[in-house]
């Protein structure tokens, strides 16, 4: 075991995959000498040279386009978009092209490309640099979507993503890069599409991903002291979603909270809640609650930002609410 920061775990994955597979290369803004806006690719230029660690001009559409085209003819690009907010400039390339090429062309071509980017709040970066847009990608057949929380998951899932053979949207979180966690020493991968129970519990299931896993874990102790055992399911991969693991946990606890940092309306929480409600109809003790950001753009002022995203208070209120159903109904 080694303790690694999230960014270092990601870098280790990139480094190993580039060492092992000459087709893997990196492109994006400031990924070279600068080492990436959040320093994930730091040092890779020195190790692999300018051909495989490519600083691009500021042209997000062609960053994705060039990655996609290279992937179609034999490359294994890992493209970085500095903020997920800038993916808005490349949605045609991601959605109309990369996601559809394999299907639309009858399976003749494929797009083994990883698109790394980061999202979320925590820096008062304002409305245009703090969004969480995962639900857009989850809605697009042909894409896979990954959103790790723990450094070891970031490492293992990035490796699987690079090897996967499909266009992968790999969503990091700007607030996690410095967060540390244990990572096994040898090489390993973590399969896409498999959720992970980050804490076992019997009374409430919190389903979440990315930085909000941390928030969920944070509140569990307090509730454990009150005798409420919370299970935290980190879905890790958002497309495909591991409904089996989620439904199993939900069936056991009977109380589900879906927690994410994206705004509530149209968020991934809706998909999870809708599907679990259908699967577990009549077997839930309480309504599934969604704890998510308010339906507003994100303000730059850090205090205001905190006020609109989920915190321990809102999560706690939701836990209290679903637990009330115990008294009333059991």
């Amino acid at each position, binding site marked *: 075991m080694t303790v690694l920061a999230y960014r270092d775990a990601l870098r280790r994955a990139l480094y190993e995959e580039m060492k092992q597979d000459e087709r893997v*290369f990196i492109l994006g803004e400031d990924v070279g000498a600068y080492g990436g806006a959040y320093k994930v690719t730091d040092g890779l230029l020195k190790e692999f040279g300018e*051909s*495989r660690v*490519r600083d*691009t*001009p500021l*042209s997000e*559409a*062609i960053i*994705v*386009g*060039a*990655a*996609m*085209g*290279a*992937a*179609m*003819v*034999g*490359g294994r*690009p890992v493209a970085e978009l500095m903020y997920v907010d800038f993916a808005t400039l490349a949605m*045609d*390339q991601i959605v*109309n*092209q990369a996601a559809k*090429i*394999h*299907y*639309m*062309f*009858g*399976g*003749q*071509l*494929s*797009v*083994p490309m990883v698109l790394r980017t980061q999202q979320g709040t925590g820096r008062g970066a304002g409305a245009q640099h703090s969004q969480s847009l995962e639900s857009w990608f989850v809605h697009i*057949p*042909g894409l*896979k979507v990954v959103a790790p929380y723990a450094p070891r998951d970031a490492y293992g899932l990035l490796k699987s993503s690079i090897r996967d*053979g*499909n266009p992968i949207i790999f969503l990091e979180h700007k607030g996690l890069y410095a967060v540390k966690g244990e990572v096994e020493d040898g090489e390993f991968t973590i399969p896409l599409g498999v959720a992970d129970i980050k804490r076992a519990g019997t009374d409430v299931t919190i389903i979440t991903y990315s930085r909000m896993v941390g928030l969920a874990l944070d509140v569990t102790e307090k509730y454990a002291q009150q005798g409420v055992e919370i299970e935290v399911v980190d879905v890790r991969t958002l497309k495909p979603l591991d409904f089996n693991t989620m439904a199993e946990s939900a069936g056991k606890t009977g109380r589900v909270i879906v927690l994410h940092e994206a705004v509530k309306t149209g968020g991934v929480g809706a998909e999870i809640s809708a599907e679990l409600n259908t699967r577990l109809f009549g077997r839930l003790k309480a309504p599934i609650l969604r704890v998510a950001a308010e339906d507003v753009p994100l303000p730059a002022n850090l205090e205001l930002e905190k006020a609109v995203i989920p915190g321990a208070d809102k999560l706690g209120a939701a836990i209290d609410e679903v637990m009330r159903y115990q008294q009333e109904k059991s």
Partner: protein
Amino acid sequence: MRRTGVITVIFYTMRKQTKLISRERDLIMTTDSTLARHLYREMLLVRRAEERILQELMQGKLASTMCHVSIGQEAVPVGVCSQMQPQDYLTSTHRGHGHFLARGGDPKRMMAELFGKETGYCKGRGGSMHITDAAIGHLGANGIVGGHIGIAAGAALWSQMSQRNAVTICFFGDGGLTEGIFHEAANLAAVWKLPIVFVCENNQYAMSLPWNKSVAQPHIKTYADSYNMKALDVDGQDVLAVREAAGELIAHARSGAGPALLGAYTYRFLGHSRADPSKYRDPDEESRERARDPLLILRANVGTSILSDADADAINSEIETLMDESVAFAEVSPLAPLTTALEDVYA
């Protein structure tokens, strides 16, 4: 030895004179007969295939309503593709039958694709607008104007990185020129010296939008200056001129000297799609432009000693047979089973 001359063509939509490279009549005579026959055949193949496609479309045989023919523009894909090597790539547009056939795509499986059949190139999922043959380096016709330019840049990038000596040809229309991604791609290709030739097929209209309402100056090659890129503007009705210009630019790209831009000035003889009667065009302009048929221009340019009437007739009947066979193949092929609609979402 440069054998191209310069002619001046008036672009009606621009009401400006534009100097274009074209073959000078007297220099053409050296052209060998095999080449002339080849170019004529390829252009006629595209022409007849699209005439046939329209016919089948009218009869309700096509599986999708999306279909755009390039009748009148055949010299551009044929001239350009005649200079491509087997390892080369191309990307294509919504108006892609010409690129596809000129690159050597199989008309049978193309027709089957348009009929939505299982034997089609895309198993019936793509149709005309997404006709593709990866095996010959054809990376797909694309429904998004400019959308495929990214693919082309990427194919060129990987060709360079993996030292394949391959050049990528990126066909796009005058409409594509005004999409932001063209500029992002041109700049990236220039900065990285990617082996790519951008071929702008300027048929003077993007749907109903005439060239003079689309851009503020008529010279496609001027766009290359921003990217320090080699460029030529050529009479796109003259297949020999296109071939020569394309040869020069492809060689430039292949040499590692960087990308290039070819502006080919042509005309869409028919409407944008079947739904379009082209009411926005001046009938006089249409007849003037239709008179500049690339098939006729080639024959006039090379003369009957190089390409005889008998040659042309033989080519015509070969192609007519091929078309009959293609339609027959498409007809008898089975429809893709409905369950295949759920396949191939992921590789």
